């Protein structure tokens, strides 16, 4: 609860949180909010300017740009969020196992991660899309396959110092099982940091999905997606720049909001600020040094 309160005290963080939350909600309720069907072509309104019934104008097929933007949230943001969730949970499971048990388990998992991470991400994604065919599902599959290793790595290094803490040692002494210890003492303490890691990755994933869609590898033609909308607007970039601006600004806004939020989240859960009262002075130093280590790793 405390971190959320602190987060909301930060003006930029609250604005970012509002933007992200609004984007997600609009995406979920797209059919209720969009003024028109996103795929409804109307050649009479080709390249029409803004009007009351089409607030952002129409594209080269006379489709409502606002509606397409709203529906575009689904693949651009919501599905990315799902892919993020999938890869983060796979990565978290393996990262927790590697960081907590160490030894052979750690070595095996980390060597697999090394192999996965030695492929260049984009090339690998292209290869997977090349094999499975273009389409949003395949891109998301490729993303999950490429990203989990990175998550496992980062989460492992976040978990390692936590698994060394004396309260974990104490629970071991008591004869508590490993999974109970992980569930009670490692996951809750690591969770805020996980949130920071995941939100940091979210922004870059949105950009990558839009980038791949821009190249025509993502979602297929009639459906709306921000990257693809930019690609469609490319032909008329100089005569009708606003067609490109609408999805472009949406991407910039959402990604910036996510990045700001991630930074603010990091600040809000900084254990230095959590130390109130008596121990703030003498306890502060230790925590900072721990935090520094994690950031390097």
């Amino acid at each position, binding site marked *: 609860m405390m971190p959320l309160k602190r987060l909301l005290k930060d003006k930029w963080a609250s604005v970012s949180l509002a933007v992200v939350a609004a984007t997600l909600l609009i995406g979920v309720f797209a059919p209720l909010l969009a003024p028109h069907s996103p795929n409804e072509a109307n050649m009479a309104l080709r390249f029409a300017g803004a009007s009351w019934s089409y607030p952002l104008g129409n594209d080269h097929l006379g489709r409502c740009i606002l509606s397409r933007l709203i529906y575009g949230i689904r693949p651009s943001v919501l599905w990315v969020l799902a892919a993020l969730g999938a890869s983060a949970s796979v990565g978290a499971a393996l990262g927790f196992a590697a960081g907590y048990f160490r030894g052979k388990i750690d070595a095996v998992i980390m060597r697999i991660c090394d192999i996965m991470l030695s492929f260049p991400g984009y090339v690998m994604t292209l290869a997977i899309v090349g094999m499975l065919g273009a389409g949003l599902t395949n891109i998301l599959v490729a993303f999950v396959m490429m990203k989990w290793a990175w998550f496992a790595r980062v989460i492992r290094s976040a978990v390692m110092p936590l698994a060394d*803490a*004396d*309260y974990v*040692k*104490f*629970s*071991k*002494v*008591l*004869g*508590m*099982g490993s999974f109970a210890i992980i569930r*009670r*003492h490692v996951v*809750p*303490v690591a969770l805020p940091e996980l949130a920071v890691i995941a939100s940091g990755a979210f922004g870059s994933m949105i950009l990558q999905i839009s980038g791949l869609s821009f190249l025509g590898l993502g979602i297929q033609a009639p459906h709306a997606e921000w990257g693809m909308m930019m690609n469609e607007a490319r032909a008329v970039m100089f005569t009708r720049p606003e067609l490109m601006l609408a999805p472009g600004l949406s991407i910039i806004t959402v990604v910036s909001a996510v990045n700001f939020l991630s930074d603010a989240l990091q600040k809000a859960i900084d*254990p230095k600020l*959590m*130390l*109130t*009262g*008596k*121990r*703030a002075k*003498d*306890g502060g130093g*230790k925590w900072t040094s721990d935090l520094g280590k994690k950031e390097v790793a």
Partner: protein
Amino acid sequence: MLKVEGVYQSYRRSGLLRRTNHEVLRNIGFEWEKGECLGIIGESGSGKSTLGRLLLGIDKPVRGSITFDGKPIADRKTRRGAISAVFQDYTSSINPFYTVRQAILEPLRLRKSENESFDFGSLLREVGLDESYLDRYPHELSGGEAQRVCIARAVASKPACILLDEAISSLDGSVQMQVLELLRNLRETFGMGYIFITHDIQAAAYLCDRMMIIRGGEIEELVRTEELANVQSPYAKELLRKVIS
């Protein structure tokens, strides 16, 4: 009874071409009787903390056996309710998201019998705190208070043995004395035994019945505290001389 027989512990250091074994403990063997307070004294690097980890069953020795009432200590079922610990670093001894109540409840939850009506108040008063601490978080406690909570937590499940690994070393002088006093009183109240790992021979002498001096991973001397003055080994004599002068 905790029985340690022929324990060796070493860590493997893997170099570029060959692996070297770094031996930390060599041929350690002793017995700890129920209710006894045994001091394990050694300088840093003598292997006393490694020995502590082995006694707690967190690590397994390379060779030798450690048993509690005949059962291996590395089996966590043996440890349940039998042994508990207090560590040096009070800042990381309690989960930062746990209140004092939750921390103390943890060992009790594992022994479900005493779950329902546990008298937190009397336990906390026993360690010199009171009920008002129950809902505090670890970062709201001072070092001495946190270490008292750790002791209360270790005592809560009434184990036969509590291992104190440098438990008073990070506290300042007067608080050290208070905690030592407290440990002495608790022992009288609950009749539990301690294994007291420390570098501080004076503190050990205050609390312990027997003292084991280790150096470089080997037992140098094992004496009763009353007979501390006539130790045999030159190293133990040297240690004592330093304290007295």
